[in-house]
């Protein structure tokens, strides 16, 4: 199981790192992508468009490195729930937008939306995040045992 958790950390962390990093080079596009959801009031659009990638990168780094794994997994799960809500509501309202999950976003030609695939991907990642939040112990984690000590794997209880 620890190795499974390691792979889960890398996959989830890698996705978050990429998603965050790809949103940074073109801030104008990031603003348009967030605005295209038509969910946030205008004053919040830019801060969310600029701040969200930082959060994604922070979560990604923590997961890849293996520090604060449980906290990072919980934040990742919370973000994914928000993303699912956004994509689901855009789908339900019939908006023709790209989710902008990995940069770009906003603009998409009619009939080129990919909502089902986006929802499936986010649900799969959410399952991984929740599993990691439940069982954060893994190999090759920088944080080691104490960073994410749980009653069952605390060093103290194993001392003879």
């Amino acid at each position, binding site marked *: 199981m620890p190795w499974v958790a390691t792979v889960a950390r890398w996959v989830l962390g890698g996705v978050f790192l990429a998603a965050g990093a790809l949103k940074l080079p073109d801030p104008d596009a990031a603003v348009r992508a967030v605005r295209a959801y038509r969910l946030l009031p205008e004053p919040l659009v*830019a801060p969310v468009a600029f701040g969200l990638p930082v959060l994604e990168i922070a979560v990604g780094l923590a997961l890849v490195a293996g520090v604060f794994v449980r906290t990072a997994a919980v934040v990742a799960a919370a973000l994914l729930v928000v993303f699912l809500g956004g994509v689901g509501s855009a789908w339900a309202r019939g908006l023709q937008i790209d989710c902008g999950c990995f940069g770009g976003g906003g*603009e998409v030609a009619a009939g080129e939306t990919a909502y089902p695939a986006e929802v499936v991907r986010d649900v799969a990642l959410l399952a991984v995040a929740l599993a990691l939040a439940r069982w954060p112990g893994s190999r090759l984690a920088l944080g080691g045992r104490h960073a994410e000590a749980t009653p069952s794997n*605390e060093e103290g209880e194993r001392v003879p």
Partner: protein
Amino acid sequence: MSPETRREAARRRIAEKRAAEERARAQERRRRQTLVGGVAAAVVVVLAVVVVIAVQSARTSTSPDAAVPANTTDGGTAFAVGPADAPVTVDVYEDFLCPACRQFEAAAGATLAELAADGTAQVRYHPIAILDRASTDDYSTRALNAAAAVADAAGTEAFLDFHDALFTEQPAEGGPGLTDARLVELAAGVGAAGPDVEEAITGLVYGDWTREVTDAASRAGVSGTPTVLVDGAPLQDRSAEGLRAAVAEAQEG
């Protein structure tokens, strides 16, 4: 029980108690380390968010006295063809790199010109730049900047000719766009020649303006190109017949 074994048992109890205390202290130390580390990490993340928001805001801000091309309408964001008092207004949002826009122009461009010429509709072209990612040299922005330079120097008729020429010579997505030299040539071909136009094209003089009009379109709810609005209502059937039908309906309504 002999005094000897009793003493041993007492000693063992004391040792166990000490070990337990030591474990508790170590646990407390770890807990404190984790807490300090967690607070430090949270502070770093918050700081990073603040810094990045500030940096990205600076990157997206446009100069308040950015050059706006002449011969525009709708707050400097559009180029209008046809009488301002025409019964119907058609707004066309296009990106010069967007293949669907070229298809729309091929299918309905002539119809738009006719509607404007016979006074049925005023056609307002809102060229925007949303596909810079789809070329290797920010072609959407460069093409839009060049179109602004042409409109500024030679008027909306020249803009329209240049606009048509750009769609005729539209490069494929994913590669380089037309070179600045080619844009200058095409501009000269529609009557916008001279060092000023050349400087405006190669120097990206209307660069800030391209971002302002793109942002304005986004704020107006345009999330894709082409977006065609007939009296504000999105045109679904973007064929020549679809356009005529929608304009006729708007005219009656």
